[in-house]
């Protein structure tokens, strides 16, 4: 595997090792009468992997949309790498080093895998040859090299998710927001995805992951933030969370199933 030149490697870190990559403060969003996100605060250190979990409709995807500029928040602030993101458009936020995937993969169907990922790589340099090179690195990193010239619409679900990750990686992010990349995958595929997220983390990438597959969360996340009805109800290490009374009541249930509700949670 060739080295993926993520910014964390490219630029020697000027900040102290444990600087905060993302600080969310008192974030709130209403949709009509529904308070989708209420007074949410959490922070993510550089290089850390944090999972957002909670039942369907808890506000996880809405939080992602608020952070990445797809929704405008009613109140609160989002600071990433020292810059306020509220009010910025999604492409500005991506240029600032935050890349996201979508809950339902959204590939550019008629483009090939390579062209999809090149489009992401073009953010940092408009030269096609260089973009092609960067794209190939990202594609090989997610294990899609064999399908480089396949139109994206012909990919299987897991390959479309891989493609989304490769496309996000090609933008050379510092912080990656993964929205349910493991939903609908079979156990073997989940293991592959877990390994992939682990490798990204090893490369120094900060990761925020929304996931329902508890087995996967326990494997990748050092810290969990639990949402219910738009509010944070708990935060802590996986061991603390599975023992937390309120989390068990609201989400996990007693003796949680390893692959609890893999369905698509639309927040």
């Amino acid at each position, binding site marked *: 595997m060739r080295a993926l030149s993520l910014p964390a490697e490219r630029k020697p870190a000027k900040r102290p090792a444990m600087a905060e990559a993302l600080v969310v403060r008192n974030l709130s969003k209403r949709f009509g009468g529904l308070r989708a996100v209420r007074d949410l605060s959490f922070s993510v250190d550089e290089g850390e992997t944090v999972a957002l979990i909670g039942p369907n409709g808890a506000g996880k995807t809405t939080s992602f949309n608020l952070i*990445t500029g*797809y929704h405008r928040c009613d109140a609160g602030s989002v600071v990433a790498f020292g810059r306020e993101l509220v009010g910025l*458009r*999604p*492409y500005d936020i*991506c*240029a600032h080093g935050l*890349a*996201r995937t*979508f809950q339902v993969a*959204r*590939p*550019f*169907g*008629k*483009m*090939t895998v*390579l*062209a999809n990922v*090149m*489009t*992401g790589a*073009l*953010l940092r340099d*408009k030269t*096609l040859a260089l*973009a*092609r090179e960067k*794209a190939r690195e990202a594609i090989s990193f997610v294990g899609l090299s064999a399908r*480089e*010239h396949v*139109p994206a619409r012909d990919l299987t679900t897991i390959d479309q998710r891989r493609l989304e990750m490769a*496309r*996000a990686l*090609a*933008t050379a992010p510092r912080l990656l927001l993964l929205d349910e990349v493991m939903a609908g995958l079979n156990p073997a595929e989940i293991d592959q995805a877990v390994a992939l997220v682990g490798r990204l983390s090893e490369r120094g990438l900060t990761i925020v992951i929304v996931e329902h597959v508890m087995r996967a969360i326990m494997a990748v996340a050092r810290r969990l933030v639990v949402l219910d009805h738009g509010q944070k109800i708990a935060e802590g290490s996986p061991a603390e969370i599975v023992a937390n009374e309120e989390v068990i009541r609201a989400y996990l249930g007693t003796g949680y199933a390893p692959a609890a509700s893999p369905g698509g949670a639309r927040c």
Partner: protein
Amino acid sequence: MDPVTRRRSGRGGLWLALLAAAALALPLVVSNRFAIDVFIRVLLFAFIGVAWNLMGGYAKQLSLGHAAYFGLGAYTSTILLIRFGVSPWIGIVAGGVVAMAASLPIGALCFRLRGPYFAIATIATAQVLMLVFLKLRDLAWGAEGTTLPNLGNAPLMMQFDGKAPYYYIALALLAIGLAVTYGIERSWMGYYLIAVGEDEDAAEAIGVNALRVKRQIYLISAFLTALAGTFYVQYIYFIDPNTAFSFNVSVEAALVSIVGGIGTLWGPVVGTVLLEASSALLQSWLGGGHGGVQLTVYSLILIAVILWRPTGLIGVLASAYARVVPAGRAQAGEAPRDG
């Protein structure tokens, strides 16, 4: 660049050279004025289709108001010619610049809308401009329009005795349009345009400023369409608001691209050849008395394409080519979709 691409472009170059030679030789071989007239119309509408296709095909912003730019180009050069004695060769560029300037506020309004709402808004812009020029009696001759002064054979004023020079100008315009498209296809902009056309939100997630990309391609598309407008009035020696801002121009621009293959380099050319040739043939067989037949055939072709070949005739040709030449790839002409 991978070897497949290189081989493909080598073969493509040969075909292109043959095609160009045939196109250049055509007026020398064909002397029938009606036939030349048909060829000029084919080239002109193929060019308008190419200009439309940049925005409508690649970025999937289905404009039905490109007559706005066609008309602005036509009026700018004509006003400059008649009121100020400026050569249409300068007027044609001035018209393009005016169209670019107009595309900015029009885009600012219309790009807030997506899908069918965008299309409807663009129709309105062309109609509004037509009404404005109907009222501009002093500057732009109002509803009666005007004929252009006949200067005889005056190449410097874009007027010629025979039809062949017009043919070559139209051919040059089409060549410019295709070259611009080719260049955009093979640059970052081609990737961004297709990404915006496929999924605007997903494109923004990877750093594409969709609004800016749409605005930029609209500028280019408007400029090129305006060139066609100037050429057209110089060719028919007449201008009025109904001709210059004709809804037919808007529809034809979209139609030839959709029939030929939306978002492909050669799609609008193939589409125009089929549609214009069929309509010209029908006209010559049936005479002018059967106006409805031509429209019916148009509609039938459009319905057939949408039902059976949504990718357009280019898709049919590409798969046929792939069957005949086993090594050839069905994706020929689709370079920006691949790396």
